[in-house]
């Protein structure tokens, strides 16, 4: 039987700058290969771990294994890695990012080379692996499991945040001290692996660049309150590459400055993502369906634009007190302030920081409906999602929908069911606005 052509996975972007991200992604893996060839240290790492700038300051080349899994899905070349990990004994309920990474490592070890035709040239074997407990447990345990295939040292950094009910004045110092110790532990580890001392001035510079990029990213999202929407969520899922995979570099700052200028121009000239924006949708949470990003264009075909999202730009800019003079202290303070930014609002109303964040978005962005993506193998973004959706329903009266699949594992996706749900969701929006 003749095989069918590979399905389209990517989405049509709304901004020109977002189209430049593909080159940034390619460069991640190219840089890692070049670094290996030049004797530089390469580290597997997890984004948003609050340690990103430390890696840059130590001149270690970061290799994001989660991103690689997303890339494989976008290329619809994930099955061989997923199946390999499963054949090695990893359960199908384990994070599919981790399964792709472990399957890739397993195949590379078995073959003695990078698997043929791996997306973007594949990942070279790292010199070390830097896990993190930020976001979820697989990000901490994944690299320990990968030691089965890679004989390189692993460091797992704990990232902690207090629950919203805590009295922050009471717990602050303890959390910050603990986080500081964790970052210092990572620095000690990197110094041992690279044989050089951390240059704190260099770390300050990376932090400044990191904060500047994230400030610009925040400013871009504030521009997106405009009607019509100047930049859709599918662009966000691309442009996050700069903020996460180039954190602490001038590349990220330049990229977001360029994007800011483009989005500002679109706002000033009322240039929307689509000519006739009827409904403004909030992507309420969950990792994106990397295997089927065109679905956002499918929504647009009904006049529905995803104008903002609750994923990836997980933190608004925070102001670390001026008495903090040490960059390691600064990282610990910044992490604490980032993670507790919505705690006060949560205590005053719903008790849930995410619900408060979403309610703010609904108001600011004039949202007509909310869509969540429940990823079967991502416990971190999926557990609690139904609860958040229910809680949100207590404070706002909007159509909400939870689509279910996985971030990369296509076996959990049903196009027919999604289209049926989307059709009903659009009709609910139409009924509310009297447009049917």
């Amino acid at each position, binding site marked *: 039987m003749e095989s069918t052509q590979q399905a389209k996975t990517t989405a049509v972007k709304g901004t020109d700058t977002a189209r430049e991200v593909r080159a940034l992604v390619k460069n991640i893996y190219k840089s890692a290969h070049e670094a290996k060839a030049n004797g530089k240290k390469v580290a597997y790492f997890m984004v948003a771990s609050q340690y990103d700038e430390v890696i840059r300051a130590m001149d270690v080349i970061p290799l994001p294994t989660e991103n690689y899994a997303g890339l494989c899905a976008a290329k619809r070349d994930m099955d061989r890695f997923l199946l390999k990990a499963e054949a090695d004994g990893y359960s199908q309920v384990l994070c599919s990012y981790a399964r792709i990474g472990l399957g890739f490592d397993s195949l590379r070890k078995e073959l003695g080379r990078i698997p043929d035709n791996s997306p973007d040239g594949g990942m070279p074997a790292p010199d070390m692996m830097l896990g993190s407990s930020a976001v979820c447990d697989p990000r901490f345990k994944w690299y320990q499991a990968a030691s089965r295939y890679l004989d390189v040292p692993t460091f797992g950094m704990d990232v902690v945040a207090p629950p919203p009910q805590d009295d922050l004045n009471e717990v602050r110092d303890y959390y910050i001290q603990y986080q500081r110790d964790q970052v210092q532990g990572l620095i000690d580890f990197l110094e041992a692996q690279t044989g050089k001392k951390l240059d704190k001035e260099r770390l300050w510079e990376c932090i400044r660049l990191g904060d500047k990029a994230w400030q610009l990213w925040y400013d871009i999202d504030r521009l997106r309150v405009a009607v019509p929407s100047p930049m859709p969520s599918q662009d966000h899922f691309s442009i996050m590459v700069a903020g996460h995979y180039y954190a602490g570099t001038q590349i990220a700052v330049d990229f977001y400055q360029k994007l800011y200028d483009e989005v500002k121009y679109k706002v000033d000239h009322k240039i929307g993502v689509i000519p006739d924006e009827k409904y403004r949708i909030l992507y309420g949470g969950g990792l994106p369906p990397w295997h089927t990003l065109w679905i956002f264009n499918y929504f647009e075909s009904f006049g529905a634009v995803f104008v903002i999202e609750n994923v990836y730009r997980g933190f608004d800019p925070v102001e670390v007190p001026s008495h903090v003079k040490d960059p390691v202290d600064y990282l610990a303070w910044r992490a604490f302030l980032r993670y507790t930014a919505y705690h006060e609002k949560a205590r005053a109303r719903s008790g849930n920081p995410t619900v408060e964040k979403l309610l703010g978005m609904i108001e600011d962005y004039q949202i007509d409906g909310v869509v969540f993506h429940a990823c079967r193998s991502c416990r971190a973004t999926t557990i609690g999602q*139904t609860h958040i*959706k*229910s809680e949100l*329903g207590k404070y706002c*009266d909007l*159509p*909400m*929908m*939870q689509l*279910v699949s996985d971030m990369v594992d296509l076996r*959990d996706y*049903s196009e*027919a*069911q999604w289209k*049926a*749900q989307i*059709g*009903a*969701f659009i*009709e*609910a929006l139409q*009924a*509310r606005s009297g447009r*049917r």
Partner: protein
Amino acid sequence: MPFGGIDIGSTMTKVVIADEKEQILASHIGPTGAEHRHLALAVMDETLSQAGLSIDQLRFIVATGYGRINVPFADKQITEITCHARGIRALFPSAKIIIDIGGQDSKGIKLDADGKVANFVMNDKCAAGTGRFLEVIAETLGINLVDMGDIASRADGFVQISSMCTVFAEHEVTSRLAEGADVAQIVAGLHEAIASRVVNMTRHLGIEKDVVVTGGGAKNKGLIKAIAGKVGFDVLTPPEPFITGALGAALVGKDFYDRGVRPAKERKKEDVTFFT
């Protein structure tokens, strides 16, 4: 002024012709199954024949259900969620929540004060909570699907079926039979399991009176009893639960017509095409 609605579900194709007073003039149900898909047109013809009408006399035809996408004689396609809501609104103006248990999926629908869809939930990509689940287990038990409600009503308790994966549940039922469990109690346990699943799903919308259960599942007395037990009060069922989607489709067509919308293209009396 007659209006037509056709609901092509995974197992049944249903057609309703209703008038401007929202009364059903004629209805007919036929199988959808793979080899019968071309029968959609035959079901429509049979219904027209009952009503003594020709297709050209229908002012508006709306298609709904999974097979709605390519119905050459339909003027518009609308999802089954909107159509069920419209059909139930006509039958039960007091309805706030609809639970639709179909052959392929189940849905919870919340209606707003105007009877329009305010929110909805659908079951996951599995047979649990659907008619298919009962169909598979009925086969395992060697009983007729249509008898399951009566059989369950004879049970003085139920055997707990913990697996909601249809395949695992089938294994579990086989094991219980081997242990000598009473068939009636097993069937009652299956109804409890499905009721649990669909009611929990619908709780996300906030359950309030009146709750109407529709779709093929509403024909099953045992399931209705189990659902009522879960929500804590009696639930309503339409006199003919299979056709509420098709009725809603006909009435959505009437709504379009009342707003001045007219069929945009010539209707083609051709077979429904599922594969394009």
